[in-house]
């Protein structure tokens, strides 16, 4: 395992741990957030976006490049019709099942075996998208 993969594995552990502590690993909590009954996830997402904002916008002023090499590059995507259409489809799936890619993986870690159905379906959805709509 090279050092980059060690960092990714450790980062994944922190991310998964955080999703479990914050409750996002439970689809029920995500659904109650979407029904505006439990707004705790706003805090979780806010802290995550805030920390990442500092990493992306402020740290590169003091560091020329990432400590293990590579390049600092903000994550930008072109806004297209697919950005919005995909977000609508994702939103329906999210509201229907309370799971998103990261929360589903952490959900598996808290012992939620039924989520394997959701994860398998996500692979199927990603495959169909790439197979028939990918360019």
């Amino acid at each position, binding site marked *: 395992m090279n050092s*980059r*993969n060690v*960092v*990714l*594995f450790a980062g*994944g*552990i*922190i*991310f*998964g*741990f955080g*999703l*479990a502590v914050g409750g996002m690993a439970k689809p029920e909590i995500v*659904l109650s957030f979407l*029904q505006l009954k439990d707004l705790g996830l706003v805090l979780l*997402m806010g802290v995550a*976006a*805030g920390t990442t*904002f500092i990493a*992306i*916008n402020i740290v590169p002023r003091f560091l020329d490049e*990432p400590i293990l*090499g590579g*390049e*600092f590059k*903000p*994550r*930008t*995507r072109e806004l297209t019709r697919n*950005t*919005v259409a*995909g*977000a*609508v*489809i*994702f*939103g*329906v799936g*999210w*509201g*229907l*099942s309370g*799971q*998103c*890619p*990261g929360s589903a*993986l*952490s*959900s598996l*870690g*808290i012992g939620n075996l*039924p989520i394997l159905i*959701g994860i398998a379906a996500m*692979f*199927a*959805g*990603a*495959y169909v998208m*790439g*197979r028939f709509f990918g360019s």
Partner: protein
Amino acid sequence: MVYILTGLHATQSSFFSSTLSYFSRLPYFQRKSYLESREWRLYFATGVIFGALIYTITLSPEGFWATSIPWWRLLVGGFLVGFGTRLSSGCTSGHGISGVASLSTASIVAVITFIVVGVITSNAMTLLGITP
């Protein structure tokens, strides 16, 4: 932490497409960005599962837990999540965390869209009497 050390955006939904590159010869999945990232994405995803597992066996007051959401909601919802996030090039972590933190217009539009649609969908389910 990952970004400061490696410059990589450790986001989730590309994991599905990049992992599919191990199994599918389709040019869409064999693109350079997936081939280059599929290994670290697998490490990251495995870490996410382990991180939640560590919480469950250490600090969690209740131990292992399973959802009571019926299988068909996980199946249909999961399919739409997989399809939609890849069509949109991002999910809650890619658009919601990395994209918003990068002040990307596309991501901000995507986040507002999927939260609004998610709120409407989950409330519609409740109104239809489908709980959980």
